[in-house]
């Protein structure tokens, strides 16, 4: 039984590049670390994300997964290779991509509602038509009655909920999330995963989620891409078979833990070391 699952997991093949919504093709990143010293953050790596798919980039700290994400976002340029989103090469941030960072990144001097509407201000588009939508989103994530609170009046979890609303309010077709819940305590984190799942199912989007939490990756994703130690590259591509909606309790099933164990083995593997 157990070995059958593992065989099934290992048998997943990476779809051929070129037919996905996000296509990362041979992307590498080398940083200048001052002087002649160069640090290879991302080794040439390729993967594809289908439209509407939720994938996680899972890897140890400092493996270059955030760097990879920033390149998909168009905030950083690859040293080699190409990234295509919705059929177009990524050279700069695109307005249809929504990003969540490790911290909520809220404007401290603006209310929750104004923060949710910040994307329109940044894009220099009228925000008024989206007032109702912003309020609805805030209510949906359980922030009814907190619309006019300032970030410092909100808890860490509440701030990250505001950030989720801010990312969804302008209906991006691609969500990029860079360890958005890593600064939260375990209980709040479970809570946030539920909120994220609910929101993702309602506002179905292609999503890439960067995390170093194996359980989080398995719980949230359709596919988990495991990255190696630095220089990071995708070393495993595992399909997560659970049906949605997923209750938090699936985390206690044997199959869930078996997948986690399999992924842990992959992460700890050091090629040549």
């Amino acid at each position, binding site marked *: 039984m157990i070995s059958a699952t593992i065989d099934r997991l290992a048998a997943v093949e990476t779809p051929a590049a070129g037919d996905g919504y996000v296509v990362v093709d041979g992307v590498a990143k080398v940083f200048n670390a001052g002087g002649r010293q160069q640090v290879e953050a991302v080794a040439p790596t390729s993967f594809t994300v289908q439209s509407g798919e939720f994938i996680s980039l899972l890897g140890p700290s400092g493996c270059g997964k955030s760097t990879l994400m920033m390149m998909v976002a168009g905030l950083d340029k690859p040293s080699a290779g190409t990234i295509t989103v919705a059929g177009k090469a990524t050279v700069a941030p*695109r*307005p249809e991509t929504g990003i969540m960072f490790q911290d909520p*990144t809220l404007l401290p001097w603006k209310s929750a509602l104004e923060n949710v509407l910040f994307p329109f201000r*940044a894009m220099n588009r009228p925000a008024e038509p989206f007032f109702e939508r912003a309020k609805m989103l805030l209510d949906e994530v359980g922030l009814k009655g907190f619309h006019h609170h300032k970030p410092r009046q909100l808890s860490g979890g509440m701030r990250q909920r505001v950030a989720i609303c801010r990312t969804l309010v302008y209906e991006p077709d691609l969500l990029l999330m860079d360890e958005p819940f890593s600064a939260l305590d375990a209980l709040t984190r479970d809570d946030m995963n539920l909120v994220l799942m609910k929101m993702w199912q309602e506002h179905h989007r292609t999503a890439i989620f960067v995390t170093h939490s194996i359980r989080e990756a398995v719980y949230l994703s359709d596919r988990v891409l495991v990255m190696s130690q630095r220089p990071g590259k995708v070393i495993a591509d595992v399909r997560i078979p659970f049906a949605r909606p997923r209750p938090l309790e699936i985390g206690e099933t044997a199959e869930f833990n078996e997948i986690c164990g399999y992924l842990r083995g992959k992460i700890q593997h050091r090629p040549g070391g």
Partner: protein
Amino acid sequence: MMALAERLRAAVLPAAFALGLLVLWQVLTMAFHYPKVVMPAPTDILAALIDNAGTISRQAVPTMRDTLAGFLLATILGVGLASLLSFSRTVRDAIYPLVILLQLVPKIAWTPLFIVWAGIGWPSRLTIATFIAFFPIFISMMSGLEATDRSLVRLSTSLTATPWRTFWLVRLPASMPYLFAGLKIAATLAVIGAIVAEFISSSEGLGFLIQKSAALLQTDLILAAIVVLCLLGLGFYGLVQAGETAVRRWQGE
């Protein structure tokens, strides 16, 4: 109730201490019969203040005008230059070290040169007040712009905001606390600039009055002018403080 008592204490305690000093000053000058020309008693200063109220208030006008104008000009230049430098790394790296170097020189040392360039009169006084007040404003604005949370800037960039919009929506409001710290220093420096300029090249202003009184050994009048300067400085500082409170309230703190 407790807060009110605490606030009263904060006001009463220093006031009582200052009053105590004044009384001590009065008693000592009276007991030891100091000549008025060396050390006038507080009552002598008050008398000089009342006797010369017209002269002092007349002379306070140009001082106030030069201080305020210098401060405003320094604010425009300081905030403007710092904002400009925040847009280009190359320009910033080229200009910023030079400004820092310039500010290491004692600013007062430039005064005679400004008088040579701008002549005797209000243009040179304005230049000096502006020059002295400029540096703290520029440097604090610069630190504010550079200390802006980088992830906020990155968020704004990821939302395809132009550099100008990122500046307007994120960097500028984020640098306000820094700017006001600089403005408070600049408010006192602008007064110093105006007075020093009046010492050197003026036939009007409180600085001129102080120097003239010194030549005539009117020590009580010097101190009366200083009292007025002190009040002016206090009012000016209060104005900046009120501006900061207004901006903070607007930013919702």
